């Protein structure tokens, strides 16, 4: 069984994550689109921390009998990997768009300077 202290601290930390994410959205520093995965992470971890019987059962399924809280680590790491992978795709898209913007801007400046010099 997960130690009670681990459960309590884990639950509080997960809920704190959810609150921080909500506050970041409210103050417009984080867009809803990029917050959903974080919120899901916080909620799932909070549930797993608080629901000690459930964590035990899952630990039994995956064969971690000696130390059930390892499930919390595993799930946490899984979500962090998912968030990171998601961000990698976002960064890739942003850098593609950035390239396109720079190209369009450069072409536009050239066009502007040629039209103004012909006048």
């Amino acid at each position, binding site marked *: 069984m997960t130690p009670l202290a681990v459960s309590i601290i884990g639950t509080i930390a997960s809920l704190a994550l959810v609150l921080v994410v*909500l506050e970041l*959205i*409210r103050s417009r520093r984080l*867009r*809803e*689109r990029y*917050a*959903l995965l974080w*919120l899901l992470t916080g909620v799932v971890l909070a549930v797993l921390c608080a629901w000690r019987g459930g964590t035990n059962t899952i630990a039994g399924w995956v064969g971690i009998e000696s130390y059930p809280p390892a499930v919390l680590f595993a799930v946490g790491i899984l979500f962090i990997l998912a968030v990171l992978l998601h961000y990698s795709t976002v960064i890739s898209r942003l850098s*593609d*768009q950035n390239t*396109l*913007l720079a190209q*369009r801007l450069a072409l536009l400046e050239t066009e502007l300077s040629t039209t103004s010099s012909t006048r």
Partner: protein
Amino acid sequence: MRRVALVPAFNEEANVGRVVDEIRAFDPSLDVVVVDDGSYDRTAEVAHEHGATVVRLPFNLGIGGAVQTGFRFAFEHGYDLAVRIDGDGQHDPSQLDRILAPVVRGEADIAVGSRFAGERDGYRSSRSRRLGIRLLAWVVSRIVGRRVTDTTSGFQALNRRAIELFAHDYPHDYPEVEATIMVSRHRLRSVEVPVSMRERGGGRSSITALRSVYYMVKVLLAIFVGLFRRNVVPKEGTS
């Protein structure tokens, strides 16, 4: 009174020409601006051939970003009145009178054409989509404190105050639901008028089933968080 019709279009080469023609047929004094949201097809060329001013985005911003581009255009070019008509042909430009009237008379800052406000007109849609539309309508009605029947309608007329608000701040992705709440929290006057909408013409809608679920979750989150935001109420006569 300078008026502009804003037409967001993404891969709508099959429909955008007809939409532009119909707007010009309704009122030749209306300037037509097509915002091409990074289409891969000939949307921009077709719109240009039909006499519209084309604002071409270098890549797809999504409907929110595209529409806001139109509002920025309208704001920076000093238009007093803007109507928004989707480029897929589902909004009927011959019904522009209905949404323009309350704004021209000064009774509202923004008028939204609703499919569900008046008589049933046989608008068909999938069951899950109808359920989603009704859920959003219920949530939004509770928040703004009056009955809103169609929160996803992009058939709208706006005066200068509303154009200015949206030019500076407009929601992302699928914006109409959040925009309805924004309008009420900024104390702009908004009305719904009954309109009928057509089935889209050629081409495909950009909304799929999985996306609608994601959209619902995202919009509900945005609405919930938005309730805790303080909003600046624009002063009378600032525009």
